[in-house]
């Protein structure tokens, strides 16, 4: 756990910072004490602030040789008792996928920040995008569930980062902080809460038992140096950690449990925000940076007397299935503005038989309010 004394200086203060910096402050306040990363635009500011501040709270910052190693380092450090994080953008996120799978399989709490930029490949380095939504969900191979959060403001970048660390501890799972180059680089007001107002989920530690890969749906971990010998492996393993790669039953029990610990707790994890949904004919669903002009468009259309409602997804994965299904039933059409060619629109289609209209914008500039409202008006 990191040194609270130093953080006291920031608590209660109002800062004028970028989304990346707000996320890094959020991590410090959530108790992060280990960061390994490889700087990349537009995520470099996260690494920069962590490099500067982490040693002051008694934590460690390591600049790694690449993103593969960064992800490996945060998984390793988490097993020594650390609260760990890395930050990257699309090209680095692609490299991290292998070890994200390892974190899922070994049920390692850690936070991965992806400040999305235009892709595929190197794409547009300095421009924001939301093209990694599905990569966050299915980037690593094999059956797994993942938690991914999408902030839409500087304040939320801080608040959701604390939440990301808490969820990673609570569900013993990697959590992806899925922001974008636009929110990452905007500067707005950030009010840092008082220390007593920030809830920190402690790590569950088993005193004696070494069955830390089974027995209960979310088993406790053990602490490094506790005296137990334990095997942490990405291969299929029994509840005591020993490999068993030939039994159908062992694999079935392990993977279903890892899947269910998130799937069956969907209602606890999923967060969203609704606007004007009590009385609406059309629904707008958006998230992250594109939720800002979307809400602006909803407000301006409401002023013109159009009955438009909005659902803003804060948790992207697991998907907000119930509320999406319920709200989509109430309307004639659903609009999904996003900075990709329709990744979440496609997910929304799974929950409704009503027409889902994509309002896509790519190329590093997000929608303007007018673009969204004109698109809606021409379709209603």
């Amino acid at each position, binding site marked *: 756990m990191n040194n609270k004394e130093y953080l006291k200086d920031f608590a209660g203060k*109002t800062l*004028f910072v970028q989304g990346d910096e707000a996320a890094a402050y959020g991590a410090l306040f959530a108790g992060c004490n280990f960061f390994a990363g490889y700087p990349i*635009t537009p995520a470099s500011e996260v690494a920069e602030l962590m490099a500067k501040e982490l040693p002051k709270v008694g934590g460690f910052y390591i600049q790694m040789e690449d993103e593969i190693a960064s992800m490996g380092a945060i998984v390793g450090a988490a097993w020594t008792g650390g609260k760990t994080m890395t930050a990257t953008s699309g090209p680095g996120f692609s490299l991290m996928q292998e070890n994200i799978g390892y974190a899922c399989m070994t049920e390692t709490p850690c936070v991965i920040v992806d400040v999305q930029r235009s892709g595929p490949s190197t794409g547009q*380095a*300095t421009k924001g995008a939301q093209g990694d939504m599905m990569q966050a969900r299915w980037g690593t191979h094999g059956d797994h569930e993942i938690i991914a959060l999408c902030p839409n403001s500087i304040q939320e970048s801080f608040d959701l980062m604390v939440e990301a660390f808490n969820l990673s501890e609570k569900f013993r799972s990697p959590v992806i902080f899925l922001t974008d180059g*636009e929110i990452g*680089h*905007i*500067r*707005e*007001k950030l009010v840092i809460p008082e220390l007593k107002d920030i809830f920190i989920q402690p790590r569950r530690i088993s005193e004696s038992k070494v069955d830390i890969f089974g027995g209960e749906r979310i088993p406790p971990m053990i602490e490094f140096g506790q005296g137990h010998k334990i095997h942490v492996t990405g291969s299929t393993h029994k509840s005591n950690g020993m490999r068993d790669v030939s039994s159908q039953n062992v694999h079935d029990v392990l993977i279903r449990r890892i899947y269910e610990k998130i799937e069956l707790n969907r209602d606890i994890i999923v967060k969203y925000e609704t606007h004007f949904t009590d009385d609406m004919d059309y629904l707008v669903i958006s998230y992250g940076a594109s939720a*800002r*002009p979307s*809400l*602006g468009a909803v*407000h301006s259309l409401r002023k013109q007397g159009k009955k438009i409602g909005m659902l803003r997804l804060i948790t992207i994965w697991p998907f907000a299935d119930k509320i999406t299904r319920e709200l989509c039933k109430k309307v004639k059409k659903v609009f999904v503005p996003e900075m990709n060619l329709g990744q979440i629109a496609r997910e929304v289609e799974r929950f409704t038989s009503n027409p889902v209209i994509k309002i896509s914008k790519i190329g590093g*500039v*997000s*929608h*303007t*309010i*007018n673009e969204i409202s004109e698109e809606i008006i021409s379709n209603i």
Partner: protein
Amino acid sequence: MTEESIFAGFGGQGVLSMGMMLAYSGMKEGKEVCWMPSYGPEMRGGTANCITIVSDTMISSPIISTFDTVVALNQPSVDKFEKKIRPGGNIIYDSANILTPPTRTDINIYAIPGSDEALKLKNTKVLNMIILGAFIAARKTVKPETVMKALYDVLPERHHKMIPLNEKAFAIGMSFIK
């Protein structure tokens, strides 16, 4: 009151800092603020701009396509953003740097010889403070005193010796607005 502005120029002219100073000063006065940069991968040169919104009410979207005020420090910025000014809006430009000035008749045009004045102060880096002075005098978005105080917060302590020069530059900029 909501002031939706864009500061545009070449990378290295201090356009991003100019917008940031305005937004930070707005925040010091308790207003809602949002600052959004846009730039290419180059460290210097290339074009850079930042949308800066200062408002008394919640800012729903940082992304806007028309502006109350455009600050243009190079020719491409005048060419690109003059047409995006709302009728009755304003353009403030560096007249020492721009060969084809804005021509619209439905907006207020402020020509500030910023680069020449900065040369007279023997430091071209204060161009942005001269222009910001003109902006504040013309738009009154925040109080000039707030900007002066903000300098102490924004500049790292090792640069505090530059503050008197910045104050002087700011005052010169203000003096161009009648």
